[in-house]
């Protein structure tokens, strides 16, 4: 299985380097991969339907508990077949749809990367590696939505999609890690037995909420749904493959996969039912007034995803069976509808439902496919859509005391979706052919065959539901932890309420289809309500957030050095001051200090005056001179306190610094402006506070006991071992010689810097 997944990645990397050589021929090569994988996965059908679960394990990063563990059971098998099967058709379709496109190789690269990631996602048993693949699907989706990268709209949509699914991805990551932390494993298989413990864990709600965050964003649930219509900017094969058949179902997959681990809890069920219900009704209504075929399909896809979430939320065998069947139903008809939309767009150049008519005369096979898909979407027998719908009604109808409400909601949704299916699958082909479409040509069979195959699937599985019953649906329901023994799929269940509901649905839907005529005007009028849509709210809050970021950044990073210094000082003073005043013990023993002599007092006084003068004088030269005096005063202190070497050094350095200053300064003008009064007060308070803290700190430290172990060692060994009597110099060249080595390096570097600063002049062209 690992190889199966890696194949796609390998191919996309392969294309990076060789894409150019293959030009037209990559299509066949590319389409061969999903086909081969489809066959590979199909051969497991027998074993899986016998109840076997095939697992594989590769160690990857045991240090994190992250491994490539793969599980092939009913659930992952169905998804794998969908991914590779529809993948194959989409690959074939693309070869004609994007024929001769400059970047066809890139497109296949992204597509096969996506396929591989998606396979990895559904096969992974390890939550973290699942997350890895999950993110890879988001990223490949980003690249595919932005495939027309010079279009501003495409880029924007790609960004929005990535941002929304990115939030979800992180939510999944955190949820998985938390789940892993409380169970001690990331393996889903190992978690299966821990449901009760997990449900009673105090973090249960948090974890489930995080997992929901992932599932809802990926599967475009309200209020995160709006990225999906935007994602339709991608070329049609992408919309078909990622944004209807596979990737958006990753969220559904996740919920199904974790049902046995996290499900069967009130929070789980209620949230899913509510969110699913809102999504399915809300976006079904949205399909009504759309005039762009892809827009209609996008919203009907969201609605269908809502139905799936809604069913998973119910969590009964009936509901999950319905969900399992509906996934197949939806994949078949929605992919068909998208593909034919692509054909229409490709051949006629428009997707506007208000002008498209009568195309059956020029695109006959496509019309057949559209018709079948529309029937299946409407749930009209004998398509498989009918079975799906019956099962759905069945489950809601028996769902305790909420049955009436839930059934009502799902019926309304189904009525609206019928309309949507008809608009996409039937409307463009009926009626008279307008003149402008008369010259429409049939596309290559590579393009029309895939939707026809899928549409035929809708019919065949409807007539012979046994084909999927034992092989796919039952194992799938069992892998969600339920007993799927009693599942029997059939077209006709006898005359009962469910059938009546079906009839009502079909009747009302058909009426709706014939009465409602969306126009551009109507669409524009409806668009006014966009003000209240989640998309607008998110866009506006984003704008606000962006403004806030700007304000925040400029508040701190305002370009004024003194503000930076002030902030740093405030921070330092606050922390040290707090510590000093809460913990210190103010024990200053004045007796331990040495008495003050005249020289010391005089030197200190001179220094104080010099400091004051340096700070407040208005002449630069005077400031420099008095700074020199500070240095000399320190020099005298060094002499008094037995540090002759220091005094010598301080003296010469101080003199040199003053000389340098004077050399530089006499070219500069006088001090220009002075900061205002308030500013000086602020700075004065800040600096005095810091000075005070330093003084107090010194007194505190001086009250502590002294440890002279190190200097005693130096004193004792300076002559005996290091052959020197001036201990300071011995330290400099021997005990701590490494410091001195670096010190002269610092000097050398500084000199080079000075040299370069003064001598190096860049030519204009060399500048930034």
């Amino acid at each position, binding site marked *: 299985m690992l190889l199966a997944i890696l194949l796609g990645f390998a191919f996309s990397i392969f294309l990076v380097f060789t894409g150019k050589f293959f030009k037209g021929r990559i299509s066949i090569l590319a389409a061969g991969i999903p086909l081969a994988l489809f066959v590979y996965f199909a051969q497991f059908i027998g074993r899986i339907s016998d109840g076997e679960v095939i697992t594989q394990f590769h160690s990857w990063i045991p240090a994190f508990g992250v491994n490539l563990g793969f599980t092939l059971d009913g659930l992952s098998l169905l998804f794998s077949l969908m991914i590779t099967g529809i993948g194959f058709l989409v690959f074939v379709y693309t070869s004609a749809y994007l024929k001769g496109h400059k970047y066809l190789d890139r497109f296949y690269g992204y597509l096969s990367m996506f396929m591989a990631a998606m396979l990895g996602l559904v096969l992974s048993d390890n939550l973290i590696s699942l997350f890895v693949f999950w993110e890879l699907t988001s990223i490949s989706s980003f690249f595919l939505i932005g495939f027309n990268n010079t279009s501003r709209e495409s880029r924007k949509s790609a960004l929005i999609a990535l941002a929304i699914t990115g939030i979800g991805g992180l939510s999944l990551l955190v949820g998985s890690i938390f789940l892993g932390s409380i169970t001690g494993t990331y393996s889903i298989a190992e978690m299966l037995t821990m449901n009760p413990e997990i449900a009673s864990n105090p973090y249960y709600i948090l974890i489930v909420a995080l997992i929901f965050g992932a599932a809802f964003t990926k599967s475009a649930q309200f209020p995160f749904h709006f990225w999906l219509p935007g994602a339709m900017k991608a070329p049609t094969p992408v919309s078909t493959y990622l944004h209807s058949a596979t990737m958006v179902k990753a969220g559904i997959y996740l919920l199904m996969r974790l049902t046995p681990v996290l499900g069967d809890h009130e929070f789980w069920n209620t949230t899913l039912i509510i969110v699913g219900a809102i999504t399915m009704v809300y976006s079904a209504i949205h399909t009504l007034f759309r005039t762009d075929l892809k827009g209609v399909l996008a919203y009907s896809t969201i609605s269908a995803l809502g139905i799936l979430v809604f069913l998973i939320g119910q969590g009964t065998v009936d509901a999950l069976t319905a969900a399992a069947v509906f996934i197949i139903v939806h994949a078949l008809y929605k992919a068909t509808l998208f593909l034919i939309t692509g054909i229409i767009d490709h051949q006629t150049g428009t997707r506007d439902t208000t002008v498209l008519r009568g195309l059956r005369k020029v695109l006959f096979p496509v019309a057949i496919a559209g018709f079948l898909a529309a029937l299946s979407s409407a749930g009209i027998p004998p398509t498989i859509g009918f079975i799906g719908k019956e099962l759905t009604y069945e489950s809601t109808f028996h769902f305790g005391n909420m049955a009436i409400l839930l059934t009502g909601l799902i019926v309304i949704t189904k009525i609206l979706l019928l309309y949507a299916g008809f608009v996409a699958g039937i409307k463009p082909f009926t009626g008279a052919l307008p003149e402008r479409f008369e010259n429409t040509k049939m596309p290559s069979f590579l393009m029309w065959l895939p939707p026809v195959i899928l549409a035929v699937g809708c019919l065949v599985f409807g007539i012979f539901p046994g084909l999927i019953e034992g092989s796919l649906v039952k194992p799938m329901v069992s892998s969600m932890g339920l007993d799927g023994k009693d599942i029997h799929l059939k077209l006709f269940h006898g005359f009962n309420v469910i059938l009546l509901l079906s009839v009502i649905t079909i009747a009302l839907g058909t009426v709706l289809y014939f009465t409602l005529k969306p126009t551009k005007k109507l669409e524009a009028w409806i668009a006014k309500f966009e003000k209240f849509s989640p998309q607008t709210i998110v866009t506006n809050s984003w704008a606000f957030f962006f403004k806030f970021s700007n304000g925040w950044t400029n508040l701190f990073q305002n370009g004024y050095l003194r503000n930076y210094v002030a902030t740093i000082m405030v921070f330092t003073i606050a922390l040290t001051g707090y510590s000093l005043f809460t913990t210190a013990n103010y024990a200053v023993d004045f007796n331990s200090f040495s008495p003050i002599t005249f020289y010391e007092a005089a030197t200190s006084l001179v220094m104080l005056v010099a400091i004051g003068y340096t700070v407040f004088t208005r002449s630069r030269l005077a400031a420099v001179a008095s700074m020199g005096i500070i240095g000399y005063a320190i020099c005298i202190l060094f002499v008094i306190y037995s540090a002759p*070497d220091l005094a010598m050094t301080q003296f*010469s*350095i101080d003199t040199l610094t003053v000389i340098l200053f004077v050399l530089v300064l006499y070219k500069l003008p006088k001090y220009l402006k002075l900061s205002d009064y308030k500013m000086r007060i602020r700075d004065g308070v800040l600096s005095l506070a810091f000075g005070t803290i330093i003084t107090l700190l010194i007194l505190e430290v001086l009250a502590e006991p002294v440890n002279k172990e190190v200097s005693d060692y130096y004193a004792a060994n300076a002559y005996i071992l290091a*052959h020197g009597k001036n201990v300071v110099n011995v330290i400099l*060249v021997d005990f701590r010689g490494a410091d001195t080595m670096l010190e002269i390096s610092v*000097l*050398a570097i500084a000199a*080079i810097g000075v040299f370069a600063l003064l001598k190096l002049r860049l030519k204009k062209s060399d500048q930034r």
Partner: protein
Amino acid sequence: MKTIILRTASTYLLPLLLMFSIFILLRGHYSPGGGFVGGLIASIAFVLHAFARGLDNTKELLKIHPGFLMPIGLALAFLAGVTPVLFFDLPFMTGIWYPGQLPVIGSLGSALFFDLGVYLVVVGVTLTIIFTITESA
């Protein structure tokens, strides 16, 4: 500045100060002094010479660009540091001492070469900085 007195004085001052700086360098291990202060005194000697005779004269006298003293000094100090590593299999900067005593210097060891390196670097650095500033002032 370029008075005759100073010019004449600098002729004698330069060698005198240089001698003094070397003395300070050598005695550093026993009394206040050392490579750093020694280097500074030597630089002052050259700076005075430059004031008196003009920068070009001093440069001519020096033959090489003072900046060149920096890598030489660094190399010397570095060698003093790595010699024990390379030849004696002792750690970096370990003092290597010549047995016996010399006048003025006292014990002769790698520390002295190290200090000499410091001296050269300091001369190089100070002169580079001051000469560059004077040139571009």
